[in-house]
């Protein structure tokens, strides 16, 4: 989904606020949120792509206005509801207020079979303008754009199907290099290249 989580190139967030150091967990609830998230995803056997998608489905203003630990809390609670372990009403009652959850998914499970590499380092490729409604690891800022394969990373389980209950389907993955001008046109900075790790299924010969 082309959601607000897909942040590459979006403007308006101001400077990066990067303190020199920070604790791993600034507050106790953050530690407990991490613990509960790991517990839930292990206990419910939630694959990582499905967990990521539970966060991507957050109400966009909530996603942008909250910390990543709060994203974990929201995604984890959403998965607990979707797995039938609790309900919105139960969470509201237990938390003593409104417990915001993520929206329902709109993803469709694509029929994808395991494949072997179609490209080698140096090949020119174009990223499909696929724009699937569900989870994908093809950022919007490279969809439809041309690049060059710079690294082959072997076979990996295709996130787009694993997120939607399709199991582990190994497909090739590559690093693809893009010229800044291909991605950002007249706003591109000089002498800059962006590399994005993309599954074979996202690519077509250019």
């Amino acid at each position, binding site marked *: 989904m082309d959601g607000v989580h897909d942040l590459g190139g979006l403007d308006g967030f101001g400077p990066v606020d990067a303190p020199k150091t920070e604790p791993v967990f600034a507050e106790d609830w953050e530690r407990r949120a991490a613990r509960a998230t790991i517990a839930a995803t292990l206990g419910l056997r939630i694959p990582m792509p499905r967990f990521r998608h539970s966060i991507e489905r957050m109400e966009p203003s909530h996603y942008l206005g909250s910390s990543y630990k709060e994203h974990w809390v929201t995604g984890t609670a959403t998965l607990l509801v979707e797995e039938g372990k609790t309900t919105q009403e139960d969470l509201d009652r*237990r938390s003593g207020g409104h417990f915001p959850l993520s929206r329902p998914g709109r993803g469709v499970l694509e029929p994808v079979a395991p494949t072997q590499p179609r490209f080698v380092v140096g090949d020119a490729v174009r990223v499909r303008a696929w724009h699937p409604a569900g989870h994908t690891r093809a950022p919007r800022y490279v969809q439809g754009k041309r690049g060059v394969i710079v690294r082959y990373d072997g076979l990996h389980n295709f996130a787009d199907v694993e997120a939607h209950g399709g199991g582990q389907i190994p497909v090739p993955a590559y690093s693809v290099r893009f010229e800044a001008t291909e991605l950002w046109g007249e706003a591109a900075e000089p002498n800059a290249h962006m590399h994005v790790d993309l599954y074979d299924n996202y690519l077509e010969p250019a």
Partner: protein
Amino acid sequence: MTEHEHDHDHGHDHHPAPLAPIEARVAAIEAVLRDANVIEPEALDSVIETFEHTMGPMNGAKVVARAWVDPEYRERLLADGTPAIAELGFGGPEGDHMVVVANTPEVHNLVVCTLCSCYPWPVLGLPPKWYKAPAYRSRAVREPRALLAEMGSPIPDDVDVRVWDSSAEVRYLVLPERPPNTDGLSEEELAALVTRDAMIGVQRVL
């Protein structure tokens, strides 16, 4: 938390119940995990302690220092990061497909995850908040030079800026250049010079 409880009944009219405090939301998830027999959150305490005490940039710093003092290790590290990093004892989730990219006088590398918060846990620990926040994720791929300059590392025009968006399975570590005038330092002293920010690529000069 209790001051919000009386509003719960109004959740369906035009004045929705106030947002439950984040602490209360975490507590609600913990209670669901227990009551629904998913898992005891406390069972994950040791994992959390690993995040706090075992993982962290001190691990990545050892990798960098070793590469500075041992040219053959450097070669192995850049050729195939995962086993070379495992030689020093680091590996595991979010670190089992490592690619190390080396800064040179002609090249500067910068790592980002525009879609979520992917980060090489075994060598850098959990990411700082700013790495996961919209400002960094949106700008790193669009205007890396402006961003690096703002963060204190202006990159000369003739240096190629290479941004790596860890959008699939690979996790990246930047190998910074060894600072000048460090010939007499031990590997341990060298490791002490290496910062988290340099291994993400938002700091160029150590």
